[in-house]
């Protein structure tokens, strides 16, 4: 069974990349290189170190932004989830932020913070933070009543209930929020590089487009998408291992 699934996955990859290759060979457009050309360009750029340099630049605002969003987001989320006054005060802000196209703020951020690292970090933060806050607060609020009562009836203190019951119970959803936040953070990081100033991978994309070196451009795009997807899949795997018990229904299956 596993083999069939794996085989089909491979098959679907072959079909997609094959279609890409064929479309590139026809060619559909002068700006559409074949899959093999793109992969060659990717290989070259990896070998001459260009990719590593680019990623060290791209990942910096991403990592800083994610770190800030995670710490602040979870803290605010816990606070909002535990206290109904802050819930009333802050939740609307984050719900609006979640629904609103925050990319529109980029021109303002550039104006306020210039075109450096600060702006890019903020872009990552505003993209990543709302979902982290909302997931955390929602998870904390939805802790099953019965296990909280259990804690009380076995004489757990308020702090014990928070640390031993509420946070562990909420952590799968908090972790899922982090994963969604990181996914949004990737969007923000790339958006920042394409829109604010071309650096890192964004630079490769913009530059190779301007000199019509399309294989390099596709290679850069392919690599960033691949990186994001692999990283998010890794997180999902970790999530499954960490929270195995919570995956299945547990009250009565």
């Amino acid at each position, binding site marked *: 069974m596993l083999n069939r699934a794996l085989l089909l996955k491979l098959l679907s990859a072959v079909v997609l990349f094959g279609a890409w290759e064929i479309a590139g060979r026809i060619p559909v457009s002068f700006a559409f290189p074949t899959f093999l050309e793109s992969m060659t360009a990717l290989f070259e750029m990896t070998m001459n170190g260009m990719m590593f340099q680019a990623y060290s630049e791209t990942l910096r605002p991403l990592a800083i932004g994610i770190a800030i969003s995670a710490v602040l987001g979870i803290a605010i989320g816990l606070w909002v989830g535990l206290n109904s006054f802050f819930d009333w005060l802050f939740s609307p802000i984050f719900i609006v932020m979640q629904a609103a196209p925050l990319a529109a703020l980029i021109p303002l951020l550039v104006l306020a913070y210039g075109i450096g690292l600060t702006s890019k970090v903020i872009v990552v933060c505003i993209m990543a933070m709302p979902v982290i806050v909302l997931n955390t607060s929602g998870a904390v609020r939805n802790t099953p009543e*019965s296990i909280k*009562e259990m804690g*009380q*009836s076995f*004489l757990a203190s308020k702090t014990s209930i928070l640390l031993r019951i509420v946070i*562990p119970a909420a*952590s799968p959803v908090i972790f899922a929020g982090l994963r969604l936040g990181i996914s949004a953070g990737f969007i923000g990081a790339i958006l920042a590089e394409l829109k604010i100033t071309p650096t890192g991978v964004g630079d490769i994309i913009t530059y190779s487009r301007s000199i019509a070196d399309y294989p390099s451009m596709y290679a850069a795009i392919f690599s960033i998408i691949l990186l994001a997807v692999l990283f998010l899949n890794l997180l999902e795997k970790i999530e499954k291992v960490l929270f195995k*018990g919570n995956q*299945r229904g547990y*009250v009565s299956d």
Partner: protein
Amino acid sequence: MAMSPIKEVTAQTTPMEFESAVSVRNISKNYGDVEALRDMSLEFPRGQLTSLLGPSGCGKTTLLKIIAGLLEPTSGQVEVNGKTVSGPGKDRAFVFQDFALLPWATVIRNVAFGLEMRGVAASEREAIAEKYIKEVGLAGFEQSYPHELSGGMRQRVGLARALAVDSDVLLMDEPFSAVDEQTRRKFQEDLLNLVQIENKTFIFVTHSIEEAVYVSDQIAILLPRPSRVSEIIRPSSFRDKGVDNIRRDPEYLDIVDNIWASLRGYVE
């Protein structure tokens, strides 16, 4: 209402010959305008099992949670061993309907939870937990997680957790309603043994008439709108005939029939 036959088989009229472990005095509980309990008084004899039985909405779980200290009564008071209840305490342990196990913790850590909260040292509480895991028949599952267990086994974990803290009073909120019929029968037999060997007071909420009559030393029938104790039944003759003979005892069958006769009118 034709309730007179019940009275013939109960010892309700005899004066209290037991010492009460738990006394409920004039408890009322309102949720806003809704009256969940009105002026309810009840005695729970020490070392015996008392069932709270009634149709849904009669406030039996509310009463149990008030005794547990999880809910505060609007008026009236609960005394456990002569002391007024003002919140959860060491003298009572709770067994939850949906088990309320921590899904991220192993069986042994779940069972030891109550002890952990009382500050018992790790090695000691694990030894105690192990003993009770064995007692409820889960030896070998100490390192399993709740999701790896069947519903019946999970409730055994919940029971072991409540036993491990060695409280005088065990409060059980429909503990067997989420397990299948055969497991439930086994549980009921085990519970009878438990009442025999552990010198504890059991308060047991159920909506199953057969279950209540089978396991109880005393059955309090609660009726809704307004919530009240309609009668107290004390089965007398079949208790010591052995677990296998109870279900065909004429007194058992009579009591089951009579309770149904009096509850029938309250079931939608």
